[in-house]
């Protein structure tokens, strides 16, 4: 290694430093932009917080109402939103968790509340009815079946997530 080979002219030196510093600055500017552009891909699927609602052993074939609370954040206002679910096991032993919100105008439906139509969900506001699996009875005001909650069972407890329209859950 001779001294000669190592010689760096003033021009080269300036070139190197300028590219180096410029590169750093460009990276500093570009990095956040790239991160920003990729953000939707990198973001974790917003973990739908599952809430423990009931003990699995308490669930019967008859729909039961379970109340629970979900944290919601609406702009600057954070609150516990009370929610309910009608939960039962079908013949195959699968758990079904229905949202009690009527698909007509959002009242709360009740199980078996109307004497003339037993074993149905009944909406007291405009007499909408749903069969046990949440299907709307034709001829009554609701136009869609009741939403179903996503659920999972862990350690003998039932966890519920978001209510989704039938077909998606």
């Amino acid at each position, binding site marked *: 290694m001779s001294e000669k080979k190592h010689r760096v002219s003033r021009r080269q030196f300036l070139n190197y430093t300028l590219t180096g510093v410029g590169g750093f600055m460009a990276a500093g500017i570009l990095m956040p932009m790239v991160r920003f552009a990729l953000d939707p891909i990198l973001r974790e699927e917003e973990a739908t917080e599952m809430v423990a609602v009931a003990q699995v052993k308490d669930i019967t074939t008859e729909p039961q109402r379970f109340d629970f609370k979900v944290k919601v954040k609406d702009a600057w206002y954070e609150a516990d939103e*009370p929610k309910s679910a009608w939960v039962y096991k079908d013949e195959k032993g699968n758990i079904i968790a229905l949202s009690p919100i009527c698909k*007509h*105008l959002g009242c*709360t439906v009740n199980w078996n509340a109307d004497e003339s139509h037993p074993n149905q969900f009944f909406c*007291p*506001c*405009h007499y909408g009815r749903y069969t046990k699996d949440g299907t709307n009875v034709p001829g009554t*005001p609701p136009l869609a079946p009741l939403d179903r909650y996503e659920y999972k069972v862990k350690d003998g407890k039932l966890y519920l997530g978001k209510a989704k329209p039938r077909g998606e859950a």
Partner: protein
Amino acid sequence: MKWTVSDVDMYEKEKQYIDTALLPLVQLTLSNATKTAVAGGELVQLLASEVERQLKGRLFLLPPFTYFLTETKEECVKRLNVWTDELKKSGMAHVFYLTSDRMWNETELGGKLFVLPSIPLEHMDEVYQQQMVREQTSKLLSSFISHWT
């Protein structure tokens, strides 16, 4: 339905289904017995919003009708009846009042009066509070529903 912009959109669209106005009657005073008035008013509004949550599609929860303790009863009754007439003219078949003030007397009013027992919620622990509220709500619900049919 609540008195909010998003709910009013629904009201405009589904007017034919929404035939009931819920009007909390809340007493105001800043001089004496403020705490009792506030406690009563708070309970009324809490229960009103609970009931609204369950009967959202038929019930329109309006901002409370407020009156000062010093107003005479006749003035209050007259003013409330003006409100009631207006509501009925705008298509509300039923007007429900919810209050904890025992001054009101249904026979003088144009709508249906529901008087709540005063419950000292502040002295209860939370579990008991919730149970109390749930009980009162379900009582109110069933009397509302039976009044509709």
